């Protein structure tokens, strides 16, 4: 994990004079396609997996408890299918969580002078890049669990995205704040007011 004390001076090749898009707070790397990925907190994949599995476990306890409680009998068919259908859902859910775990281990970002890029996914991966001059506003959010372990989510909003917001989860709080402040200091944002 790198620290964000220094802005590296690495020029992106074949670009005009007066335009630079250096990686901020990373060792080196030039274009997005040979990027220097900063991974999110090493705690995040495990915690996320734990939360997901706990949800499955709690739901399982509730559903199985409902089926096997001694007070009243459920119709036999409901009992028979209830267990099997829930079993199927729980299994799929656990598999999804396992995939998410793998994907979260690879989750990372790269902040450059002009844009922020998120790398996510494992078997299905997605690289999204948000130019900073197009950012409408930016939020650092913390849920109750996040607060406990000192992580935060970074929400980046651009115009017109009602449904598909750019969110980087599992960042250390100070890192998220740093990214937010860096982006807020960007001159294009100030020009637009």
């Amino acid at each position, binding site marked *: 994990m790198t620290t964000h004390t220094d802005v590296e001076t690495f020029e992106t090749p074949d*670009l*005009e004079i007066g*335009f630079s*898009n250096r990686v901020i707070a990373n060792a080196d790397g030039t*274009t*997005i*396609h040979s990027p220097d990925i900063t991974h999110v907190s090493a705690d995040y994949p495990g915690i996320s997996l734990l939360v997901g599995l706990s949800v499955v476990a709690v739901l399982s306890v509730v559903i199985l408890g409902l089926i096997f409680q001694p007070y009243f009998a459920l119709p036999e068919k409901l009992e028979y299918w209830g267990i099997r259908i829930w079993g199927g859902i729980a299994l799929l859910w656990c598999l999804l969580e396992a995939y998410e775990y793998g994907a979260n281990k690879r989750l990372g970002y790269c902040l450059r002078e*002009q*844009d922020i890029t998120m790398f996510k*996914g494992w*078997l*299905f*991966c*997605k*690289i*999204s*890049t*948000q*130019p*900073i*001059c*197009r950012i409408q506003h930016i939020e650092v959010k913390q849920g109750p669990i996040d607060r406990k372990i000192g992580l935060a989510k970074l929400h980046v909003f*651009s*115009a*017109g*995205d*009602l*449904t*598909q917001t*750019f969110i980087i989860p599992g960042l250390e709080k100070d890192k998220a704040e740093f990214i937010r402040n860096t982006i807020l200091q960007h001159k*294009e944002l100030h*020009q*637009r007011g």
Partner: protein
Amino acid sequence: MAELSQPLPEENSQAQGEWAQVAPIGILYFIHNFIEIVVNNVFYMLPILFVLWDKIKANPWIAVFIFAGILGFVIGFAVLSFVFFRYRLFDGSVEVKSGIIFKKHINLPFNRIQNVKIEQPFYYRPFGYALLAFDSGGSLNQEARLIALRLKDAQHLRKQISEVATETDNTETYSENNTNTSHVGSPLDETVINTRTVGDLAMHGVTSNRVYLLLAFIAPFIDEIIEYFSGKFAGWGLNIQSHIENDPTWQIGLYMVGLFLLFLGIMTVLSIIGAVILFWGFTLSKTHEKFIRRSGLINRHEVAVPISRIQVAIMKQDWLDTIFGRINLRLDQLNAQANVANPEALANKLMVPSVFAYQCRDILAHVFPEHRLHDMPFLAIKKMFIFRFVLWLVLPITIGLAILFIYHNDPNWPALLMTPMVLTALIWLRWKRWGFAYTDDYVYIKKGLFGVDRYCIPVHKIQRVAISQSYWMRRSQVASIKFYLASGSYSIPLIDETVAKQLQSVILYQVESQARSWM
């Protein structure tokens, strides 16, 4: 109705800082609104009516009670909506409180207002009232409406707000329930760049009718409908059941085709009428910085859009359009995709129905001067597209069907062979339609199945880019790319990985180095 026409108390025009009510005539607006919702959803209510029909016939009084009940409910709803409706202009923003059960509080700062629209429904006109609508351009439920103001108060307010919001370059639109446009001031530099004749509109009605939608809706009820009508016809001395059993197949086929054509004809006529009502007297004019669209037979709509706000141009062609060589041109603004479900959206969109290709090109040249949409050679996407859909769509369906056929020991196995062939042919057609092209300034996308839609996306308006790749795509060095704009998102699936990355670099460089405004 007499008390509704009474003059409005004077303090309503001075709503500065204090919560004010609108004029009681606003009740009519709420009733109108409610009826509009009912009419728009009438398709969903037809089955209920259908089910209840026999009971209603047996006892007409039920119908009267139901009707009275509904009417009472609507009026009660409208009166309560009016009672709870409050607004104020305070601290540089418009605030509106409304809602009976679900309270809504909208706070819209003047400088975020993009559109100020004055509307006069026909029942407001004799009394000199108007409705003022503000559009924030942001999220959809942030649109504020002041339901019933006196026309001159509304105009005064609009002027006041426009003055506050001048630096944000806001649009003003005026729509009226009448063709009388005398007091819609036309700026001197306004030139009409396109008009549509009734013939064009009829063409639009023919090519873009909604028959298929209706058919899809009717399909689940087809059994009941046939049963119902065969009962009806038996009463008229026509026995469909016996016809179906006794007549030769070709004759039944002929009946079906005849019925279908009749149905199609009726729907087409309805569609033409709809198109003519919506687009009657269509003109598209241009001032130095705005497009103004005027149209409408009953409700006269005027929509003005600053050219710089247009995010993307879409040339839509249904399969009939491709035969007749017509194009429906749409110029989308903010959040256009989210708006699609709203029936009012079409009337408020900048759309030019059924133009010829050369007219389309001329209009587009005003918006995106250097565009090459008409003569840009499109590149194909990867054939992997076909493979992917055969694998994920055709194969499962075929296997499912095969299991069903074997299970029921059905002898109609040719049908089983036909399904995957037809589906694969459709997928091939879809692949054939896909295409893309790009220059430093524009990205072009072409897609469709029977029809074809062409998109022209200016690179400097792109908000975000994403490249996605599955494990298998990575192995064959293929990637999909998606562009997010203020109007919505647009994607190109399955192209060369290197091309996708180059395209991404071009876009990012253009957006970041120029930092041109997308508004």
